[in-house]
Structures are given as structure tokens and as C-alpha cells.
């Protein structure tokens, strides 16, 4: 047992209970209005502060990690994405990194077997991460319907695509699939489970994992689970929810009657997540764009990068060097700036 994931689990569980109980004892305003507003404020302020804080530190040297053939002669093809030489190249590299997790795709797994080291393609982390992030994005975009009236066409299209696979079980007693099943929610849940189990079960990853690695995973698990419960099991009153959410974005907050506890749990966990975001590793969302090994051009001998704090340093000059070795240099037949006599004269 590891106290780090237990602690994280405990925290999420307490949050879960707090929202459930809170909404049951009439604290709907707190969990439905006050906390979400506060969370958004903390998120925006914290995110901006963090990014500005990063940006306040200069990039003194161009230190891209070059991942392929650099710019060379015309007859040597350049790896234009992995070792970009212009602004467009850098943009492309960043886009591939952000949209496809290109570096993670390279991942291999080392195995030492019978005195031989082998490196196998290890694709699961990449697949898991990609599934997680894209499912999350889809879920997030789908949720904009709660804040926009009428729901924009593109969101409706996304919903149609997301519910492409119709899964319906319609028996007396078991009814599932109505409303339409959104794939993204379940993919998100599965991906979170995979990423969490991976963290717990792979010894090396467990060894380096902190509370702050488990906490967001478990929190998102709670969010996805409560969302799914609301939609398919407790069948929350969707019109009441939209009334609340529209009230929030139009700054006319109301708390309609008859929204179940699960909704408040869901909303509270989301609030915690976004408030926690700027103070955590989740800021890799912003950091990747500022990572100097990825966002700089690779042909650093062709363009001069300027260091704003470059300062003069003491050096051992040629004159000092010759002064020390002049005699020996002359004896060895090496050219000198000043002959012995000249140097002696100057000294006098």
C-alpha cells in the first residue's frame, strides 16, 4: 500500500462526500454558484499568473533538442519537423507535439534479456494519453451546450459523431442507451482508469509518483463517473441544469429546484479541478508551448539568438598568454606579436 495514492483517494472521497452532503442540507447556492464562480476566478488568475511568470524569465540560449537531420547542404534532406529551420517549421513541430504527442510516440521499452538489450515500441502510454486528452476535449466541447442558447450547429454535429455507435439495451428492468450513448465519456473513464492503474502497477512509475500525480487522475475519474451516472442512471433534469448553467454565464445565477445531489458532486469536482489546475502539473498544457527544447529553430548557426542578459566576462587574453610564454614560443619558432626586445622595452 502506498500512502500517496491512498491520500489522494481520500481527498477525492472527502470532496465527493462534502458536495453530496452539502447539497442535501441546502447548500445548493454554495456548491452551484459561489464555488464555481470562485473556481473560475482562481483558474483565470492563476493560469495567467503562471504563464506570465514563465514568460518573465528570458530564453538566454537556443537549445532545441534536434530530433532529426538538421539543415545542411541541398543534397542532404532535412527533417523539417523534428529539426525545423524556420518559423513555420517550429510551428509545425509544436503542432505535432501538441496534437499528436509526437515525442511520446517515439517511446520504447528497454528489456535486458540474455545479455542483450532490446528496445521495443511501447505504444500504450501514447494511446492512453491520446485517448484521455481527446476524450476530455470532446466532453469539454460537448459541455458548451450548457452555456450557449441555442446550441451551435458544430456542437450538435460533434454530439452526433460522438454518439455514432448506438448502444441500446431496452429490456424491462434494464434500460440503457437512451439518451444516446456518448463514446467520449466512457473513453475518458477507461483512459483515466488505465493511466491510474499504470501508475500504481508499473513499479518504476509508482516509485516516482506523487500525491499530485494521483489526485488529478482520481478527481477526473470522479468527474467522469458522476457525469455518466447523471446521464444514464439518475437521469438528471437536464432543463433545470441548463437553467442553472445559463444563469451562471449570464451572471443571473439561479438555483432551480429538483437537481439531484450527483449534479452538485459533479460540479464541485469540476470546480476543484479548475481551481487546482494553475497550481499543479496540469499546467503542462501551457508549458509545452514555452518549452525551449521544442519551440526554437534548429539551425542555430545560421541565425543569432540574442541573450538579453549577456554580460562581459573576464577572459585570459592572447596578450597575457604571449606574455607568459613568449620566450618559449620564439624558441619553438612560433610567431609572436612582440619580439623579446620589444616586450622588454615596453616593460621599462
Amino acid at each position, binding site marked *: 500500500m502506498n500512502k500517496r495514492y491512498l*491520500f489522494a483517494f481520500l481527498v477525492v472521497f472527502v470532496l465527493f462526500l462534502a458536495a453530496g452532503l452539502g447539497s442535501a442540507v441546502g447548500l445548493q447556492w454554495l456548491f452551484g454558484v459561489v464555488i464555481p464562480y470562485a473556481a473560475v476566478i482562481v483558474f483565470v488568475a492563476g493560469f495567467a499568473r*503562471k504563464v506570465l511568470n*514563465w514568460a*518573465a524569465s528570458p530564453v538566454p540560449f*537556443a*537549445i532545441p*533538442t*534536434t*530530433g*532529426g*537531420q*538538421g*539543415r*545542411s*547542404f541541398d543534397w*542532404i534532406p532535412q527533417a523539417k519537423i523534428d529539426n525545423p529551420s524556420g518559423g513555420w517549421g517550429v510551428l509545425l513541430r509544436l503542432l505535432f*507535439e501538441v496534437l499528436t504527442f509526437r*515525442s*511520446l510516440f*517515439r517511446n*520504447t*521499452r*528497454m528489456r535486458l534479456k540474455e545479455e542483450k*538489450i532490446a*528496445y521495443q515500441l511501447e505504444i500504450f*502510454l501514447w494511446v492512453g*494519453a491520446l485517448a484521455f486528452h481527446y476524450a476530455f476535449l470532446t466532453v469539454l466541447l460537448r459541455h458548451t451546450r450548457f452555456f450557449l442558447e441555442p446550441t451551435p450547429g458544430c456542437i450538435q454535429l460533434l454530439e452526433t459523431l460522438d454518439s455514432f455507435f448506438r448502444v441500446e439495451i431496452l429490456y424491462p428492468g434494464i434500460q440503457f442507451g437512451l439518451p444516446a450513448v456518448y463514446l467520449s465519456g466512457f473513453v475518458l473513464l477507461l483512459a483515466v482508469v488505465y493511466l491510474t492503474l499504470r501508475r500504481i502497477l*508499473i513499479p518504476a512509475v509508482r*516509485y*516516482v509518483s*506523487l*500525491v*499530485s500525480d494521483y489526485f488529478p487522475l482520481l478527481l477526473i475519474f470522479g468527474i467522469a463517473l458522476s457525469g455518466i451516472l447523471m446521464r444514464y442512471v439518475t437521469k438528471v433534469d437536464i432543463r433545470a441544469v441548463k437553467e442553472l448553467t445559463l444563469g451562471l454565464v449570464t451572471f443571473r445565477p439561479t438555483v432551480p429546484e429538483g437537481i439531484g445531489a450527483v449534479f452538485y458532486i459533479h460540479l464541485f469536482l469540476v470546480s476543484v479541478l479548475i481551481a487546482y489546475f494553475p*497550481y499543479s*502539473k496540469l499546467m503542462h498544457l501551457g*508549458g*509545452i508551448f*514555452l*518549452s*525551449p*527544447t*521544442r519551440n526554437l529553430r*534548429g539551425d542555430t*548557426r*545560421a541565425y*543569432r*539568438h540574442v*541573450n538579453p*542578459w549577456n554580460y562581459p*566576462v573576464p*577572459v*585570459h587574453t*592572447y596578450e597575457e*598568454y604571449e606574455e607568459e*610564454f613568449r620566450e*618559449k614560443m620564439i*624558441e619553438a*619558432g*612560433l*610567431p609572436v606579436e612582440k619580439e623579446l626586445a620589444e616586450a622588454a622595452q615596453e616593460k621599462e
Partner: protein
Amino acid sequence: MAEAKPTPQDVLHRIQHSPPRSDWMETPVEIRKGMYCYAANPKSVATLGLPHPHAWNPVEDDWHLPENWQQIIHEGFKERLERFRSFKVFMDICVRCGACADKCHYFIGTGDPKNMPVLRAELLRSVYRNDFSRMGRILGKLNGARPMNFDVLREWWYYLFQCSECRRCSLFCPYGIDTAEITIMGRELLNLLGLNIDWIATPVANCYMNGNHLGIQPHAFKDMIDFFVDDIEEKTGVRVKPRFMEKGADILFITPSGDVFADPGTYTAMGYLMLFHYLEEKYGLKVTWSTYASEGGNFGFFTSHETMKRLNAKMYAEAKRLKVKWILGGECGHMWRVIHQYMDTMNGPADFLEVPVNPITGTRFEQARSTKMVHLVEFTADLLHHGKLEIDKRRNDYLNVTFHDSCNPSRGMGFFEEPRYVIRNVCNHFYEMPANTIREQTFCCGSGAGLNAGENMELRLAGGLPRANAVQHVHRKYGVNMLACICAIDRAALPALMDYWVPGVQVTGVHELVANALNLPGQNERTTNLRGEEFEELMAQAEGHTDEG
């Protein structure tokens, strides 16, 4: 020396990659013989006026630190966060996904979990969280935060000098977190307390005062080159005439001093001399050496950014004094990272030099337009491409060559095709090692970033295991008997590695191969290679090997 070395098999079977039961923060560091380098000689530290020169011993309990050392570290940390966005971002955004864990050659070779790049960085991050983040401090150890104390400092020192700044992990990191950058900052902080290793501090002092890491004085440097001149004459019948600090020469040539000092680098140095002689005889190109700027490498890079700049300044200063057109650099790894990514920024702009043009081929080196320094291998590749060198590849026919990409030209430049093009044009038998061990995924020799001392041989052999293992693969499969590289530290470090892990494989610089194949005007029969080995015997041996195979 008296102690029996464990056999490679023993070592391989002993490596354990699963982490211990105790939490990493609860596992105290044990500074073990064979894994660490000796402490810096205070005289060397004082030569450059670096902070707190003092005598100390890593295995003793008192490192004779200044009274306020924790404050020095804290303020130094803060200053570097403010100066380097890289450092700040890398302290914040790691998600500990573990993709980097098994990418480090030191982790693969030792199994020590603190050699996983993520944990190496966490050694610093844990202090960062405590000192610079409220959230970290509140949760404390549970969330990986801990205050700086002597145990943490010892851990920093031990593991920051078990990182060769090769950047293999940064290639696989989804956010490009670069452990080299973190190690560089960590070592800068240790240097604030005078805690460098001697294998770095003394070469730095030598380089500063005498022009090269080895401390070779000008007349001795010339003597050594003259010795090569004799050697070349003996083997080829041609007396080459190197130029020294000649004003108005076309090109200033700078290479790591290791090449003039120890085998097999010396043969590479002879290769340079022969190539320059050929170019002068045939095309009138004048290349000059300098004893003042007689070091391409830069161990200052392993000390601090400032020290790197102080040593590097000589290159431009000497080029300016000698009024050459541009600078040519020899085969070296970290030297080229410094030139490619730092020099122009630190000591430029080099507006007193011309945009490099190869006067023989007319090629304009657009890739070096601003820095005005060209890699000898790209220079030779250009010559070969235009058919400007008379080559007899048969003199390399006894060799089955593979190429070891050095870390810095790989992940700091993307210098892959140039050396391969040269090798293929001077050798008939070239074989690649497995794809996951070459090019941008190449493994370090295990001795980079100033760790090629004698006293840490166990670490070096462990760190070199992944490279050696890949060489062994092509040695068995294709009969590879020559490991080519373009790095002076490789040439110094790989022979020991090969002797231990893959006996029967020798190490060479690319320009030794070039020189062996190069037909010099007026040469003799060329019955031996530059190492003085008879071609007849070598060819017979090689054929014997093929017959057996």
C-alpha cells in the same frame, strides 16, 4: 588496479531495474567508490576565481562548506529561475509519466532509480517545491517537497555527476524537458559552493591559462604536432607542413586537444594534417592552427554558463587576431553543441569574419551563416561531394565500420548524414547499429560531460553498456571491427568500453578513415595504415575472419 574486475556477464546479471522498497526520499545516498570523481583541486578552482575554492573529500562527513551554504543555494536557485525560462518551466510541468525512465544509459547500466531522468530532476524539484511553491510546502514530503540539507546536497552532487548531459531523455519527453539543462543548473549551484570534480575543474583551469584542457604549453603543442609530421612522413613518404598562428591564413582550425594527446585520437589528428596538406598542395588553401586557441572542447560547459563563455571566447578572439576568413572545427561532441547553440549568442556576433565559403567547391555554408564556424566533417563531405579528394577506398577494406553518433552533434545539431556520407565515400564496408541506438536516439559513450576520469570507471562501463551492447550486435552479425565516431571524448572513452564489453572492436575518428584512403601527391606505396599496421597482414586477417564467418 589490484582488484579483480567483475566479468561483463556478472555485471549484466547483477543489474536490477526494479526500484527498492523504500521510498526514494527515505533512501539515503551512498557515495560509492568507482562511481564518483575526485573533488576539485582548490588551486584549479581559484585559477578562474570561481567561488569557494577549498579542499574536501566526497566520502567524508564534513565538506567544509561555507556557513551560509543553504542560503547560497537558495539564492542561486532563484537567480537561475529568473534567468532561464527553461529551468522554470522544467521545474513546473513534469507529469512523471515515466517515458524517460529507461532512456538513460546510466539507469540501464546501473539500475539505480535515481538515475531515471525523472528522479534526477526530482532531486532539484523537491527543493524547488519547498522553496518556491506554497502547495509543495504545505504537503511536504507527501507531495515531493523537502528542505535543502546536507543529505540532499550529497545526493545532488552524486547524481548530477552521474549525468552526461546527453539529452536522450529530452527527445522522448512529451514536453521536451531536458535533464541536461537541469544538470547544468544543478552543477552551477554546486559550483557556487566549490563542489566541482577535479576532472572538470583542472582541465578548465588548464584551458584558461594554457589554451587547452591538457595544459600543453605552446612549444610543447608544436612539438606534438611535429611528432605527427614525422610519423606521417614515415608512413606516407610525404612531409606535411602545418601552419601555426599564421596571420592572413584562410581558415583557423580548432580541435579538441585530446586529439593531439592520446591514441586513437592522435591518428585522427594526423588525418586532419594530411587533409590540410592535400588541400594546400592541390588548391592552395591555407589552414592555420593556434596554440592559444588549441582547445575545441569546453569543460567550462560542465561548470557554468559563465565559465563556458570565458573559455569559448578564445575562438573568436584568435580568429579576429589572425584575420582569417572563418573557422573550421574538428571532430568533437560537446564542443559542437557549444558552437552550434551557444557561441554566437555568448561571444558573437562574429561580424569580423566572412560567411564561410569553401573556396575549392564554391559552396556557401548557409547553415553556418551567422556563427561562421564549419564542422570539418561537413567541410569534407562537401569536398567529397564535388569530387575534390582523390580517394582509394581499398586501403580501408580490412575494416567493417559502424558509426557511433555522439550525443551532442545528434541532439544538439542533427548532424547525421554528413559523417555517414564521408564514411561511405572512404570505406566499402559500413554497417548501422540497430535503429533505436543511433542517430537522434543514440546512446552516450557513458563518459560525457566531464565524467571520463579513471576513478569512476565502474560508472563509465555501466553507462557505456547500451552503446557497447549495440556494437556487440553488429560485431557478431557483420563482423564489425571498427567503431567510428566524431567526438574526442568518445575516442578517449570508447576503447576502454570496447575492451571490456566487446573485445576486438577498435575505435577511430572519421578523419583517420579519410586520411587512410586519401592519396597524397607524391606519396609512397602506403603499405601501412596510420597506426603503422601492415595492410597485407590486416587484409589477410580480415579475409580469414570472413572465411570463418
